[in-house]
Structures are given as structure tokens and as C-alpha cells.
């Protein structure tokens, strides 16, 4: 991969130590929830599959910190971090993974479809690239309704080679819509290095110019860098200056999905990225801001307790109501297809 993101030394300004400590705690909650999801799967309490986002926390938390409550977020099947960053609780996310009635989608969506529409988290989509045009549509809707909302599509590097990505960028550009396209480039399209199947060094950012869109490659493991880049892009969008493509370089700590041990990744590459764990990057920033280690440790302990409580609550929750298998096909709540 080329297009190394810039250093982070110049962007510490503008965030308070207290705020950064909050963001660190949010990231720690997500990290802990992802680890819990992994462990619960091994205990047979989570079924199906999971696509864990451990390592990607700074993208979700940094972006969410820069957005407003009314903004729209569309994410992918690797979307637990976005659901939680937008306000879904660890309990309702874990309950969803564990097929519980208290799950955020009442056990009808599962890991790949975490959604919290009341918080503007408009869904996690498991067909690669499909949600980019939807985010364009939500931005179009904001324009039509005369609001200053923005819409954000988060997607992986693998989505940049599918038609919907290109159709979405083109339409968003020609209509100059308030939408942010945020690529989480974790270097691998499932099991395959993205660079080996993509005719661009930066799979998202390099394509933007072809659609007359500005783009930035950013350090996706630095919550401050992400927050500031998203804030700039959102300000452009709200000002009527159209979409932005951000390519956040990051790395997943687990494999692609539950069944993938990720043995195809060179050990030194993994080591290099683990040394830039987004939680550690934030901790180092906090130290630089004069925050005592004990305060950082306390935040991480609070996060640990939140996750432990969430696990206990999710385990204790009841399973889904059998009647729910036949509800909510239609807006009237039902599933009748005949009269």
C-alpha cells in the first residue's frame, strides 16, 4: 500500500482532554464488546457468523463524534462499531448476536444487520456496496426536505470495485449532495490483499478524482485525525459544497469473519499495525495532553464493567417471540400477501 497517512502531530489541537478521554472509553467499550462477541461465539452463545471490527474503532468513534444527532449513517456487515458509536448499547447489540428478544433488531437481523434508526444508524448491509446509493438517497432526501443533515456511508476497501460504489459517487457528485463516503481500508478484501485486485493505490481516494470529488487518505487508527477529517467533510457538505471521499487506513485485529484465522497476513505486518492500536494511539495522545495514566486506566475499567454488564444482561434476556417470525414484512406490522 502506498498513500501513507500524514503524521498526527499537527492535529491534536481542537480536542479537549476530557472529550478525548470519552472517545477512548467509547472505543474501549466497542473493543470489549467485540472481544465478548468472539468469546460468546466460542461458548456457543452466538450463532451464524460475525465480522468483528476490533481495530477499526477510531473510524466509527471519530466520525460519530464529528456528526450531529440527526445525521444518517449507513454501514456494512462489519458494523458493530458503527451501531455502538451511533448509540446502540452493547447490551442490545450482544443480545441481537445471541438471538434475544431484546436485540436491537429483535433477533431478526443478526450481526450483519445491526440498525438503530432512532439514532440515525440506518442499517448494516451485507451485500457489498449496496448501501452507498442509499446514503446518496438519504442525502438527497435531506436536500429535498431543506435540512442540513448529512449522510455517511462507511464501507470497506473491497467495496470500491463494485458498480454501486461508482454509481453512488457519480450521482452524489452530479447532484452535489451532502454525503460522506468513508472507506475503512484494512488492506484486505476478505482474504485477498486489496492491492492485488485493484487498479489504484488508494482504492477509494484515487477513484474520487474521476467523479470530481475531493478525497483524503487519513490515519484511521487515530480518533482525532478521523474526527477532524469528518468534521471538515461534514462542514463542506452542510455548506452545499457536495460530497467528500475519505479513505481511513486501518487494520482488523480478527480475521474477515468468524471462520477466518487470517493466517494470510504476514506476522510483521500484524505486529506493525498492533503497535498502532487505536486505543493505544488515543492513550498516547492523552498522555501528551497531560492526562494521568490512572485516568486512562479508569476509563478502560469503566468500559470493562459496561461490557461485563452487557454480557450478563444479554445472556439473561429471553429468546425471540415466535410470532415475530411473521411480523413486520409490511408497514402495518403484518405479513399477509393474499386477500
Amino acid at each position, binding site marked *: 500500500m502506498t498513500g501513507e497517512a500524514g503524521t498526527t502531530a499537527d492535529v491534536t489541537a481542537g480536542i479537549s482532554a476530557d472529550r478525548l478521554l470519552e472517545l477512548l472509553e467509547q472505543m474501549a467499550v466497542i473493543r470489549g464488546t467485540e472481544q465478548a462477541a468472539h468469546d460468546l461465539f466460542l461458548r456457543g452463545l452466538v450463532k451464524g457468523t460475525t465480522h468483528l471490527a476490533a481495530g477499526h474503532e477510531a473510524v466509527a468513534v471519530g466520525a460519530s463524534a464529528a456528526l450531529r444527532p440527526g445525521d444518517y449513517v449507513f454501514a456494512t456487515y462489519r458494523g458493530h462499531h458503527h451501531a455502538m458509536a451511533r448509540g446502540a448499547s452493547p447490551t442490545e447489540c450482544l443480545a441481537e448476536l445471541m438471538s434475544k428478544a431484546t436485540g436491537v433488531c*429483535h433477533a431478526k437481523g443478526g450481526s450483519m444487520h445491526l440498525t438503530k*434508526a432512532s439514532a440515525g444508524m440506518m442499517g448494516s448491509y451485507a451485500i457489498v456496496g449496496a448501501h452507498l*446509493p442509499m446514503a446518496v*438517497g*438519504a442525502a438527497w*432526501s435531506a436536500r429535498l426536505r431543506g435540512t442540513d443533515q448529512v449522510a455517511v456511508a462507511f464501507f470497506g476497501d473491497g467495496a470500491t470495485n463494485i458498480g454501486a460504489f461508482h454509481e453512488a459517487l457519480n*450521482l452524489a457528485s452530479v447532484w452535489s449532495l451532502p454525503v460522506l463516503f468513508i472507506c475503512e481500508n484494512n488492506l484486505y478484501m476478505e482474504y485477498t490483499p486489496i492491492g492485488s485486485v485493484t487498479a489504484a493505490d488508494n482504492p477509494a481516494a484515487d477513484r474520487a478524482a474521476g467523479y470530481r470529488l475531493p478525497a483524503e487518505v487519513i490515519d484511521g487508527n487515530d480518533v482525532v485525525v478521523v474526527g477532524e477529517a469528518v468534521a471538515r467533510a461534514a462542514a463542506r457538505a452542510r455548506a452545499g459544497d457536495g460530497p467528500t471521499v475519505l479513505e481511513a487506513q486501518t487494520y482488523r485485529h480478527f480475521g474477515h469473519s468468524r471462520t477466518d484465522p487470517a493466517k494470510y497476513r504476514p506476522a510483521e505486518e500484524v505486529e506493525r499495525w498492533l503497535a498502532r492500536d487505536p486505543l493505544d494511539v488515543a492513550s498516547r495522545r492523552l498522555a501528551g495532553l497531560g492526562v494521568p495514566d490512572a485516568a486512562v486506566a479508569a476509563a478502560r475499567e469503566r468500559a470493562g464493567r459496561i461490557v461485563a454488564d452487557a454480557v450478563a444482561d444479554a445472556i439473561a434476556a429471553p429468546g425471540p417471540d415466535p410470532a415475530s417470525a411473521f411480523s413486520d414484512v409490511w408497514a402495518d406490522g403484518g405479513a399477509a400477501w*393474499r386477500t
Partner: protein
Amino acid sequence: MADVITYREAVAEGLAREMRRDPTVVCLGEDIGAAGGVFKTTAGLHAEFGSQRIWDTPISEQAIVGAAMGAAMTGIRPVAEIMFSDFLACCWDYLANEIPKIRYMTGGQVTVPLVVRTANGGGLGFGAQHSQAVENWALAVPGLKIAAPSNPADVIGLLASAIRSDDPVVFFEHKGLFASKGQAPPDGHVVELGRAAVARPGSDVTVVALAATVPLALAAADRLAAEGVAVEVIDLRCLVPLDMATVLESVGRTSRLMIVEENPYQGGWGGTVASIVADEGFELLDAPVRRVAAACVPLPFADVLEELVIPTADSVTAAIRKLVGY
């Protein structure tokens, strides 16, 4: 407006009526603006409503339908046009995986009040990629409502219901019917989704038809009336919700059922109708259920060949005559 309008004019009229009553109704599609649509089904709308309500798009079906979905989830009632129904295949992910499933898989958190309009069907010699009747594609996906009007009044009435529906509706306009004429319905005309119409009453045989096969069935009924056969023609109008109550009631009186579909026999909607009648109306029948559908081949170009593949008034008449004589 005129007392008599064409099916084509009815599409624009139906859209205009809903756009006048609800400012959140917005149309998007290829060439639908000042050009008025390749079939002129949006003629006059851009002039009346302007470019903030009638949006020209690139040839970009995924963007059209995907953006319509995103807008529908966030407070707009979009009406997306896919120029030819064959092109639905270019954005089928949205019709198969996204639009019909998002409400269900989020536990009811979102609604998707959108309409996808499309010009469907053959008879105009457009060949295999611009002539298909693909209403059965949509019927294969739980979570989509499906309307397919046969006459101008139903175009307006069903469009009103489709646009007002909080559920996604795929709205099949038949290319072969665009020039056909009918009574213009009064303002406020609404046809509820899922209510079939008895297009012609009769006592000897029930013929269930949809969209362009309705006039075929009516033409056959006219000819057979001269032979003393009273054909009841049911216009289904919608495939979802599917009005089997009307079909079963009719079969209860006629004891014979023929289904006339333009989509291919393999996987065609008539198979669903026939299976329900077999399950729930077996004792009502005095003869086998017969289906007249398109042959299971791609649509040929030459009109003399196309006529051999899709139902015609002749083939429908012959099939009914045979069924009545069973």
C-alpha cells in the same frame, strides 16, 4: 381533463395527482424530465413541478433505485422509473435483497414507501432484452407489493394507492397498452391494492388475467359469446396482495379456471394461482386448471415469431374453447 385518455396519459396524470396532493412525492429516472420519458409517461410533469420534483438521472439503475430507497427511509416518497423492466436486472439487488428486507430484518425500525415504475411486456417487436414480462421476478421475493394495471382508470387508481402505500410497490406499466384508451376517472379515484376486478361477468369459465392479457381475455370472451360460451374475466390488477378470494368465488360458480399470463410458463405467476386453487378449491373444479403463458424461450424479434411465443387473442380463444369442452 378529457373524458377519454390513453394509458400513457394516465401514468402522467396519476403521478401529477399524487404530486399535487403530497409535496414529498418526487420522481427520478432516465429521461423523465423535460424529455417526458421515452414512453412519454412523464410528459408535462417537469413543466408543472420543476427540477426539484422531477429528477433526471444518469443511466445508473443501482443509483436510481438505491437512492430512492435511501430517500424513502428518510421521509420522502420517491417514484423511481426503470425505463424497461428488463433493466430491473441491473438493480435487482435492491428489489431482491434490500428494499423488501430492511423493514423485517431491522425488527420494524424503518419503512420504505417507494414505487418503482417500469415499462413491462412485449408485443412491440423490441427483441429479447426490451420485451420481457418480468412480473414473476418480483413475485419471487416476499416483501414487495406488485401492481400491473390493464386500463387507464386503474393506472390512476393503483398509482394513487401505490404512492400512498407505506410499503414498496413495483408498478408494471405494459408497453403494449400505452396507446390504449379508456374512461378518465374522477379526481380522488383510488383503487385499493389487492382487489381484483371482474372485468366481464360470465358463468361457464373463469379466466384470470393481468395487464395486457386482460384485453386478450376480453377479446376471446367476445368471440366465444357468439358461440354461446359465457366467459368471466377477472383482472387481478395486483400480484401482491393476491386477491384469491375473488378467484375462488368465481371458480365456485364456473367450475373451470384458465390463467392467461405473459411471463414465461416456467416460474410464471399463474403457477401460484393454480396451486392455491388446487389446495383450496379442488372440489370446485370440474376440469383441469389450464395456463396460457409465454413459451419458455427468449422473446424473438420478428412479430410473426413473437406471436408464437406470447399469448394472443387466438391462442387464448382456442384454449378456452378446449377447456369448456373438457
